[in-house]
């Protein structure tokens, strides 16, 4: 029974990892940038949700409806932030040396983090969601309701993104830029706008997930790095171009981490996650579903 509980705990947080990683993978695939500021988009989304809820409902626990209503606000705000960042900052180094793009996005992450520290201090903040009781028991496995809400929300965000990419004209444009930006441009697609749109969408999904993280854990200015690192691991697990791969990778990472915490020790979770990453890179560099970290077909 304990193992079942560890797996459930892992799946519940793994869906959040996945929805963050999907955006990370999208930017990697379309804009060809490893966005080290992706975790900061999660953090900003969490703060947007927190301040939205505070301004509407004040302090204290709020109903799930009020908490959920803050998610679209985070999506919209972070879309604008992401679009602007790509259009006015990141586009300047797109297509240049990998090291330069890493440096710029790393710099962005530091700037955003420090601005958040100045604006909101280092206090951990949370959106308390009122459920009575807070969890339910399924055959001895406890499922916190807020985490279940966040799990469903993260899955919905991921599926919506997948459907957008697959079934809409704009989504096809994004995929075509990912495959061959020059050919896409010849077909009349505005590559720069499409890349900014991609950055905006990825940031929006990260921000929406950040809103859910604010409901189940904490929002803090320094929280971003760990989500960027986890996204990196998940993208390598699932493959750069694959939304289902990222989803499975996220659920797998969450489960592995919680099983490690439960059966071994919490101190070993990151070591085991990154150990798996190394093993996977050696054994199957394409990832579970994708076109690989080297971009091979």
């Amino acid at each position, binding site marked *: 029974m*304990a193992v079942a*509980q*560890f797996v459930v*705990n892992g799946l519940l947080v793994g869906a959040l990892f996945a929805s963050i990683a999907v955006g990370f993978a999208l930017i990697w695939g379309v804009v060809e940038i490893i966005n080290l500021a992706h975790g900061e988009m999660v953090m900003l989304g969490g703060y947007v949700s927190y301040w939205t809820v505070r301004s509407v409902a004040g302090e204290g626990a709020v109903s799930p409806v009020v908490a959920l209503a803050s998610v679209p606000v985070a999506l919209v705000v972070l879309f604008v932030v992401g679009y602007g960042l790509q259009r006015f900052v990141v586009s300047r180094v797109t297509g240049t040396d990998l090291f330069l793009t890493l440096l710029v996005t790393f710099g962005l992450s530091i700037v955003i983090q420090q601005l958040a520290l100045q604006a909101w201090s280092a206090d951990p903040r*949370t959106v308390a969601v009122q459920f009575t009781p807070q969890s339910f028991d399924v055959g001895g496995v406890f499922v*916190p309701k807020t985490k279940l809400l966040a799990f469903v929300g993260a899955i919905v965000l991921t599926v919506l993104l997948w459907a957008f990419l697959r079934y809409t004209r704009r989504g096809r444009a994004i995929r075509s830029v990912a495959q061959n930006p020059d050919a896409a441009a010849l077909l009349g697609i505005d590559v720069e706008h499409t890349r900014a749109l991609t950055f905006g969408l990825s940031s929006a999904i990260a921000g929406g997930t950040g809103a859910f993280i604010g409901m189940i*854990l904490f929002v803090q200015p320094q929280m971003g790095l*760990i989500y960027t690192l986890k996204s990196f691991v998940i993208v390598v697990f699932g493959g750069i171009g694959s939304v289902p791969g990222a989803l499975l990778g996220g659920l797998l990472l969450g489960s592995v981490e919680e099983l490690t*915490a439960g059966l071994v020790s*919490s101190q070993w979770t990151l070591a085991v996650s990154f150990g798996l990453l190394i093993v996977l890179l050696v054994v199957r560099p394409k990832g579970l579903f994708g076109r690989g970290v080297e971009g091979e077909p």
Partner: protein
Amino acid sequence: MQTIVLGGSMSLSGDNADLGALYRDSYQLTVDAVNEMGGVEAGDGNTYELELIIRDDETDAANSKSIYQELIDQEGVDFLLGPYSSTVTLPASAVAAQKQRPMVEGGGASPKIFSQGNEWIFGLLPTADKYALSMVDMAAAQSPTPESAGLLVQDDTFSTSAAEGTRDRLDEHGIELVVDETFPSETSDLSTNLGKVRDAEADILIMCAHQKHAVIMAKQMETQQVNVDMAGATVGTLSDKFKEDAGANGDYLYGPTSWDAGASFEDPIFGDTQGFSQAINDAYDYNPDYHNAAGAGVIETYVNAFQNVDELDPTKVRDAVRDGQFSSQYGEITFLDNGAMDISMLVKQWQPDTGKVLVWPEAVQQEQPIYPMPAWSER
């Protein structure tokens, strides 16, 4: 009037910013109070105004170390105020030893700080290994007597030291340790570890960690349905901010304190303990806890030393700190040979009707502990 500069780093941002702010407030309040009283009449016959330099170390030990080196080498600061947390204080105290400047601190409690043979460090808090002892003693004296315990430990210098003392005391009481888990400082999800405590049916739960994780524990104990007779954390459960963040989930939780605002120790600056408490309330609009009291005690320790030296030389001031013995709002301040103070912790509990009350030791308790804590389904 001449000036004596007191300088140091503090966690004004980062994970421990909440508690770091308490020290900054107390340092500033006490320095201002001394200056308003006309300054320090030092043993060399001169009267000095105090000047305070506090830099933000962002809760980072490397930053803190650099700040102390800069304060000493470039700004000529001779008298150091300690930072917050053992992890930050330990390397900072090494700088004090290397540069031969006294450091008086109220925020580092690991025994490692005082076991290095460092003659320049003085700490006002009980050493970390003592933090949870009173909570264990209290639980062992209740009915039903606990037979098993869960121990969750943050992997930092203070908390691992606190856990060592806790394990020994549990063993002395014959309480079996059924869960003993160490978790990384950066984690913000304790569900799995708390689930282990629930599944092991531990009677009591002790967390050796700081405020952020105390809040997580309070919240996730409910979602994981962890029903124990007693739960407490070594740091953070007694602050107003903890209760604000944890809400009703903070009720019935315990925490240790080296100080009580209701005590009546005489104090040369604030009159007595309650005078200090009132001064903090007036200046900052919150109720002080032992971090505030220790912070003020740091400044008062220096003031007492300055009054007892014939020259403001770092070595003479260090010796005066070591030999000093005086009453303050914090209690009787006197240091052991290793620079630590010998203090036992009191235990407080958040009770739904009365708020935060002193429950242990019995001789000074304001209320009986509510023991066992009610199950989550009964709240």
